[in-house]
């Protein structure tokens, strides 16, 4: 401020400056208010739902759902592997806590691998619903019915897997217009009823025509699944009837390759060495990796003197290092040859399963002779898809009647265990041995001394808990904050 300046001059100048400055600030403020256009950005990595409202978009969602279905036999750990780990098909080959507690039948709801597998089930289930909605809105020019039916199959299959593995009371939530529509807990029995209804819906779509190969393929898949669920429901008559209409040669195969997804068992047993094929883990003494090799679960051990070493050499398995977990109950470097390469198919639903459902149904309906005949037919003429890649199971001799009811039961489950190794059936069967055959937990499940630590380690789980993440479904009650409550955890 100048000393010569009068007060009035100063006030005038200051007021003038203040007014102009305020005007400047106001103008700037107002000009900056609409910024939407400046910050608009489009990310090319995402696909806007608005862009796929079309016939091809609907087909894309269907294929995406099948891709997720395919993931159940590939890459990550689906219930097909995880059920086998808690059961007697696999023991853990590494030191991850999640696998250890699963192998020990002592799961925590926070188990990250379990959560991933659980999500895998619902990804397919909800994807199938979305695909059906899209196909109805944008029907394909031809074959829309079998596509819809296939999505019913995918949904029903996952509901069955959910019911077979998880505790009583599972939700079947959905998304409506991409918004969450929660489901309350549904009892296991009701899940089976829902799954059967889905199958019936799918079958009804196909019945008027059933002319194309796809119609037949999907129809057979629905029938095999219906028989499987009927067995779970204890409806052996229905199971026998439905299963008998499917030829043994039928197979609904999941294909794999190194460029997309590799077979799950190959990946986890042969490649990553995170799973070990069990050998007599549990009271049923399923010697999957026994030195007395069952040809339906072929294995090998590389190196001089290794079991079936030549086969290992042929398959390119040379590593003889032990598994991380140090399970000495199994020859450490045992490889499985069923899926001996990274591109083997998995016959996830097939006619052999139909035969085996028939076998159990026949036995339960009092016709063990018929059951034995079916089993021996399979042994005499094994389906080619059991060992993918044109290989055939050989060397199986006919079975004889073990006479006692318990022995017959054990024989049937044993046969089923070997034929269906690593395909997600064993866990449900172990539960049914308790639920439908009255066996005790310790007669069925691995118990007592855990093979790896050689100290008592097994707990008492016979189902998987609902993962903690499901506590974010507001209709699911919580046992403690953040932990979903099951109705019960009985077999």
């Amino acid at each position, binding site marked *: *401020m*100048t000393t*010569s300046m009068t007060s009035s001059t100063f006030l005038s100048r200051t007021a003038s*400056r*203040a007014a102009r400055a305020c005007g*400047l600030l106001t*103008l*700037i*403020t107002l*000009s900056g*208010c609409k*910024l939407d*256009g*400046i910050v608009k*950005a489009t*990310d*090319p*990595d*995402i*696909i*806007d739902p608005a862009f*796929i409202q079309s016939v091809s978009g609907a087909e*894309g969602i*269907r*294929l*995406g*759902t099948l891709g997720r279905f*395919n993931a159940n036999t590939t890459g990550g750990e689906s219930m097909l592997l995880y059920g086998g780990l808690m059961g007697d098909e696999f023991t853990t080959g590494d*030191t991850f806590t999640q696998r250890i507690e699963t192998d020990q039948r*002592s*799961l925590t709801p*926070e188990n990250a691998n379990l959560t991933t597998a659980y*999500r895998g*089930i619902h990804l397919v289930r*909800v994807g199938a619903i*979305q695909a059906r909605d899209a196909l109805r809105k944008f029907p394909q020019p031809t074959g829309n019915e079998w596509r819809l039916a296939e999505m019913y199959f995918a949904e029903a299959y996952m509901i069955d897997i959910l019911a077979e593995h998880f505790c009583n009371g*599972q*939700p079947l*939530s*959905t*998304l409506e217009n*991409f918004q*969450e529509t*929660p*489901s309350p807990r549904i009892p296991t029995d009701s899940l089976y009823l829902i799954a059967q209804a889905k199958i019936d819906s799918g079958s009804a779509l196909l019945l008027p025509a059933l002319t194309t190969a796809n119609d037949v393929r999907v129809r057979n898949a629905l029938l095999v699944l219906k028989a499987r669920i009927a067995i779970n429901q204890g409806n052996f008559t229905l199971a026998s009837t439905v299963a008998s209409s499917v030829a043994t040669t039928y197979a609904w195969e999941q*294909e794999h390759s*190194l460029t*997309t997804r590799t077979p799950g068992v190959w990946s986890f047993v042969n490649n990553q060495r995170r799973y070990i094929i069990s050998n007599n883990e549990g009271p049923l003494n399923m010697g999957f990796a026994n030195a007395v090799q069952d040809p339906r679960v072929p294995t090998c051990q590389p190196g001089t003197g290794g079991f079936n070493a030549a086969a290992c050499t042929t398959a390119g398995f040379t590593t*003889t290092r032990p598994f991380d*977990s140090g399970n000495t109950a199994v020859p450490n470097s045992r490889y499985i040859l069923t899926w001996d390469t990274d591109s083997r198919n998995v016959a996830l639903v097939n006619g052999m399963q139909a035969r085996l459902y028939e076998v159990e149904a026949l036995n339960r309906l009092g016709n063990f002779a018929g059951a034995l005949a079916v089993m021996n037919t399979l042994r005499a003429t094994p389906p080619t898809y059991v060992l993918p890649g044109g290989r055939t199971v050989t060397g199986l001799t006919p079975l004889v009647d073990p006479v006692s009811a318990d022995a017959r039961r054990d024989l049937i489950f044993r046969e089923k265990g070997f034929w269906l190794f690593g395909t997600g059936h064993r866990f449900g069967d172990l539960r049914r041995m308790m639920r439908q055959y009255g066996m005790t937990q310790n007669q069925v499940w691995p118990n007592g001394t855990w093979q790896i630590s*050689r*100290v008592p*380690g097994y707990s008492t789980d016979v189902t998987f808990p609902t993962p903690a*993440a*499901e506590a*974010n479904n*507001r209709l699911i009650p*919580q046992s*403690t904050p*953040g932990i979903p409550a099951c109705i019960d955890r009985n077999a």
Partner: protein
Amino acid sequence: MSNLRKFVVVILAAIVPFALHAQSGRGGITGRVTETGSTTPIGDVQVNVVGTSIGTMTRADGTYSLRNVPVGTVEVRALRIGYGERKRAVIVKAGQTTTADLALSKVAVQLAPIVTTATGAQRRSEVPNQISSIDVAKLIEEAPITSVADALVSKVAGVSLIGGSSVGSGSRIRIRGQASLSLGNDPIYIVDGVRFNGGNQQAFGTGGAPSGRLNDLNPDDIENIEVLRGPAASATYGTDAATGVIVITTKRGKVGTPRWNFYTEQGSMQDRNVYPKAYTMWGRLTNGTASDCNIQSIASGACRPDSLTTFNLWSDPRSTPLKDGYRNSYGLNVSGGTESVSYYVSAEGEGTSGTLTVPQFELGRLSRNSVATDSRWLNPNDYARQGLRANLDLKISPTFTLPIRNYFTRSFFRNPQDGNNTTGLGSHAFGGAGTYSRLTGTDTLGGYRLFTPGDIFQQTNELETYRYNGAVTPSYAPTTWLTTRGALGFDFTSGTETNRCLRDQCPNFGQNRLGFVSTSRTRQFQYTADASATANFSFRDFAEFRSTAGFQFVQVNSDNVNGTTSQLPPGGLTVSQGSVPGSSEGTTIAKTAGYYVEQNLQLWDRLDIVGSVRGDQNSAFGQNFGTVLYPRAGVSYRLQEEKWFPFKQQVNQFRVRGSWGQAGLRPGTTAALPFFAANSYRANGAEVPGLIFQQLGDLNLKPETVTEGEAGLDLNMFNDRLTFTVTRYNKVSKDAIVSRVVAPSFGTGTTTQSTNLGAVTNKGWEGIVTVRPIDKSYLGFDLTVNGSYNTNNLDDLGRDAAGNPIPPIIGASIRQTAGYPLNGYWQRKYSYSDANGDGLIAVGEIVPDTNISFLGYSAPRTELSTQLGFDLFNRKVRVTTLFDYRGGYLVDNTTERFRCQTRVNSRERVDPTAPLDRQARCAAAQLPGALQTFAGYFETADFLRLREIAVTWRVPENLVKVLPRMRNTTITASGRNLASWTKFTGVDPETAGGGLGNVQDEFQITPPLTSFVLRINFGF
């Protein structure tokens, strides 16, 4: 017309009339600034006319010139770090030049008197926040500073930094605790006025620390670093600034003849940590079979022990994977110029090799197998950087300056699988047997578990980065009371990261030995455009107004293309040579546009009141959300200026201050959007593309708004020989973005939904005390104590659409539970007793609690650093030491837990003479799944560390000037991370596991290194 154009028009329309305003009655001021009581000139003094935009810096000879000064009596103010502020009234006459010399007194306090804010430079004492400054140029002379992180660690209260253990790795910085539950908690970086990518980068996991982009800066180029801790200070920076702002200013040219500076650093990197021994108990099973025993199998009678052996591969000369690394750097810079053009140009190259290498026994194995050893295997961790900087300051006219900043750097970072990955060094070095001689095939494992370093280090991960930062920050003062500023900046980073195993190399895991290569090519562009105008005017002689308005636009684009292949042919190196190709691509785009206005009012040169508001829009906000406003207000009151203030002789400053503000954190760039993604699978012999519903999105998503209030007191006494600063803060993150877990049964691909639900509070204290009890010309001693204490709480996780509380987010050991700190550790506690008195704790002797309970914080609550400085021998020698304490938190000692639980080689798992409490925690970890508890491994991690010690010798002039043209020489010998004291049972509580994320753990990874550096600096 676009909004941007509209804005430019408005700015011009507003400014031009002012610029055209007649400028009459002007004069000039010249003078010289010297030290009080001597004729020693002081350069780099900020001299300005109070209440105007007129200002300049003194030349090296202390002289200055100010032109176009309004006639009449004005006040000239001089400010410089290390000196007390000085004001002087000057009478300016029209058309004449008045001489005004100024004398400044040295003060003990070393804080820069000017700080940088979003609205321009301001006097520190006017700013109502505590803004910490680090005089990097000075620090480098007396401490082992080889990176920006080194300059920051333990220097600023409230700033917590943890660095990666390998050379060239990045660091994690948290300011005033962790504010956000789900978003990044890293601060943003502003270098010379423009946004700078200071994050970490890693495309392929190594199990260890990622490389750090902050390392791209050459510390020798930096003048100072300022830290704005939170929204109370950073509100005007808007979205992204809620977690703090680190403002870095590089050196500017100094007017005068060229002043050259050459320096070199030569040093050693050493791993002086004490690693655990491995134990093996040899024995037999009950059936006579030879077997390893452990406490559990001994206690159960399943195994009969025979003998115990131990082995420490880290210290055994045959097996150790450790060597001494070497650091060298060479730099040359020159500064000079005229009033019109000044320049600072620098070039630097540095190289540092890490401390890992192939052990002796492995060299023998490779040789026996005729495998030629690659130099990369011998130096699996390596870092190199070359940088070139050209800073120009153009003074186009007395009213128009044009600073231009250019920096180009190239860096190279190689790091092996050094952590806890399946094939990582840590997984095998921490997990082997207690013997050197256990074999794999015919070769010894050398104490390693399954894989040995000769194979592990064959997998190379290399990142080469090229980077350019440019900034133009013009400033135009059309009148004495108006200044306009702009900033245009560009930060471009291009990196190529390659992760490779050649055929027949690397650990025999999966298909690794068939060969694979993955390469990721990443680019990031950061654009900054900033324009603002500041008007200064006075009312009478007691009120100064300062009004600022501005606009800012920041855009960050990142894209990457990854190519992968496996099954390489012999000799194959590239992605195209493999038989199983794959590729991926990713893009992120984030744009922020904001406007801001700020009004400062200063009364009687002692009371400052500031208010501001910033409005932001961001591309990541949901489409239903508009512009967010971030207000700020603050008061600073310098009581010592009051006439009534007592103790004026003793007290140089007594300031109380308080401020309140808001800033934001933007959500992920696509978090608001519902979308589908592509997948593919194999059907009918071919790959088929499909669509999957991926993400729910949230169209109402808005930024996480963090509100912070702080209040503090600054006290300087006895000619600033005692300074004391204390600040209390309370930071609340409302509408905190919670990555709400989507229940799996909804079948979404993305497992979480970002939504504004929660609330997080951080509150605490920060304080700094500096004393200089001895301050003689021949001897000095100073002490700085710097501390902070933080309390963090997750107030609320929010409620879902139906009003139900969001359940806790439960992880394996970390939970987000309302009422507890973020990322707190939770486990089932346990008790134990040796019931049978056999001296062994069996699993059955553990009693786990029924419930899982909170154990403690995962981040330090208390941080305290103490720096001691001694000036000796007529101040020719300065010795500094820095001690660093952190406490109040737990570290997950996963290394030791794994050694117990799965490696079976820890003392507490194997040795029956191990202390019972250690046996107990190990036994508790072996309980069956649901009862299993790792509580014993979440250990108190409090530590005291001798962080730095340095001795600097300023070579006497008579010795220096023996060589022609020499101006000065300093020699500094320093060491970093020299010793530590802790009860933590792991290797080091400061081990940066967890990938430098929000939670640090120690999990089979090597801890921080020790370094010794000799630096010689020649000025000529």
